[in-house]
């Protein structure tokens, strides 16, 4: 079974902090990491390969430095890495990104399953997975928390919805996004590290993929970031004073004014 896992290299957002005096982002020392939600997709790809055979190809779109992320995937069991990189892609939104990735998957050609994380840590949209499925004309299964079986051209899996879980069946090839519950991603192994060290990554440009210029980059992205700003805090805070008992009693008074108590 040939599995394609789509990943993204993102800034480690937990380290992106706001300088409270200047209200600007402090980015110093922020390293690039594999989008944490994608690590579950990589692990699931490797586990499915271990269960059903085949190989795992990691696909990412990004600057040339994203090759580090691909090598990290090989360290934890992936077989190959493909970097789709071109200046023409700069500024692509989710629509343009899913177009580029779907073109790359078409070029890979022989695939049975495409896996992505449920969303990225920086953008938080979760739109690229379904976008790819649509472009490829194959079904999409969101928030998969367990893969029961893949056989006879069908995948049986459990997905998370707001009210609980659903067991669904989808034909393969299909695209699925995985939730955090699906597995615990493994740590790098010695054989993986050695393989990653000597691994030859594939790099494809817009031309390699036969990409239409007006469908990527800023030109191919209908959405546009007009402004950014720090979240505002507008609430008037009141710190309750006194001993613990006094504070609790003051709070109870406030709550009963609100008719909660």
């Amino acid at each position, binding site marked *: 079974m040939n599995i394609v896992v789509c990943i993204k290299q993102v800034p480690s957002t937990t380290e992106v902090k706001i300088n409270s005096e200047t209200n600007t982002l402090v980015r110093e020392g922020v390293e690039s990491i594999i989008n944490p939600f994608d690590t579950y997709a990589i692990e699931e790809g490797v586990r499915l390969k271990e269960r059903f055979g085949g190989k795992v190809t990691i696909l990412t779109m990004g600057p040339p430095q994203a090759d580090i992320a691909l090598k990290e995937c090989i360290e934890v069991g992936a077989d190959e890495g493909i970097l789709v990189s071109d200046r023409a892609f700069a500024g692509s939104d989710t629509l343009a990104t899913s177009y580029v990735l779907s073109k790359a998957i078409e070029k890979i050609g022989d695939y049975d399953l495409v896996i992505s994380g449920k969303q990225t840590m920086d953008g938080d949209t979760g739109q690229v997975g379904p976008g790819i499925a649509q472009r490829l004309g194959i079904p999409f299964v969101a928030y998969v928390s367990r893969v029961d079986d893949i056989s006879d051209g069908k995948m049986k899996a459990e997905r998370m919805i707001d009210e609980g879980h659903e067991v669904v069946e989808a034909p393969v090839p299909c695209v699925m996004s995985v939730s955090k519950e699906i597995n615990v991603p493994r740590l*790098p192994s*010695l054989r993986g590290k050695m393989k990653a060290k000597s691994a030859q990554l594939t790099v494809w440009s817009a031309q390699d993929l036969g990409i239409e210029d007006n469908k990527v980059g800023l030109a191919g992205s209908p959405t546009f970031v007009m402004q950014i700003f720090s979240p505002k805090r507008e609430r008037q805070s009141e710190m309750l004073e006194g001993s613990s008992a006094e504070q609790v009693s003051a709070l109870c008074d406030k709550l009963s004014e609100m008719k909660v108590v």
Partner: protein
Amino acid sequence: MEYFLDEQQKMIKEIARNITEERIKPVRAELDEKEEFPREIIKEIAQADLFRVFIPEEYEGFGAKCLDACLAIEELSRGCCGVSICYAAVMLGTLPIILFGSDEMKQKYLPQIASGERLVAFGLTESGAGSDAGAMKTLAKLDGDSYIINGTKQFISNGGDAEIYSIIALTNPAKGVRGASAFVVEKDTPGFTFGKKEKKMGIRCSSTCELVYHNCKVPKENLIGKEGAGFIATLKTLDGSRPGVAAQGVGLGQGALEEAVAYARQRVQFGQAVSSFQAVQHMLADMATQVEAARLLLYACARTIDAGATNYTEDGAMAKLFATDMAMKVTTDAVQVFGGVGYTRDYPVEKMMRDAKILQIYEGTNQILRNDIISHVYKRKAMRP
């Protein structure tokens, strides 16, 4: 200090460090409290190929270099010596097979050990035979194509949790230690059961257990090497494993030092961080120096072995003696730097201090090692250059 590690060694260090940070540190207090074997972590260690490190290349390993194995043990011990002994005990139990096993025996067992599919334990100590290994009573009697083993081994690390046991038993009691032989006994062999599980002061997540043999029948081909070679096998095995114990000491000392420095920086007394007091600074400086000195001795010893030295009993003994005495002192000082809270289980140094004690005791007490060292010193006609 720059130790000029090669690429593979750097990878091993990084992999083991990752496991310590991601998997061991978050649960070490709980594992200690519950005295629970760290099965999940061992799986992760296996998955990361660390069991392959001490296995020769021809048996699906990574070259069996002493320094490579020591780096893995050191990094795991930075997190928890209870976990690292589970790993190091596998190496200890595997050494007799690597050193003296037949090719068939190696083919049979080493790949399984390399993959981490089966764990190993080494059975030497008995209730009446600790430092005085020659006083052992376990017997192995040849009976046709099998040996019949009777006796009880005590304080066996990984006992009960390992699948493969390398044990020493007397095949010819009349000859004393010269009549000892080494055997592989697999778990679930009829007549082989587990006795008392010890309640320990430290390394509490590791299992330490009695092995009980009652008319336990093992096939003749499970004899490791020749009859009567058991005592030599033991000595060579311990020579090979002692750098591993030294690595536990270095890692533990390093871990305690890191905890103490971090705590001293954030703990405020008299309006300033305690790290700014010279009394604390000097303690931390001494701790750092001792850790580094032990590491140097260990790496030099491991490199001596990897370079092909044939007799390294003294080197290993010195490294183990120095590194484990250091670990005891550094962990004790770490508790002192923490003050009152360091004595509680809310912080890791209390456990580290408990864990340190066993390092001075097992695989040759530090007193026995001093005997070994001085006998080598006296034997030399001249001091080393």
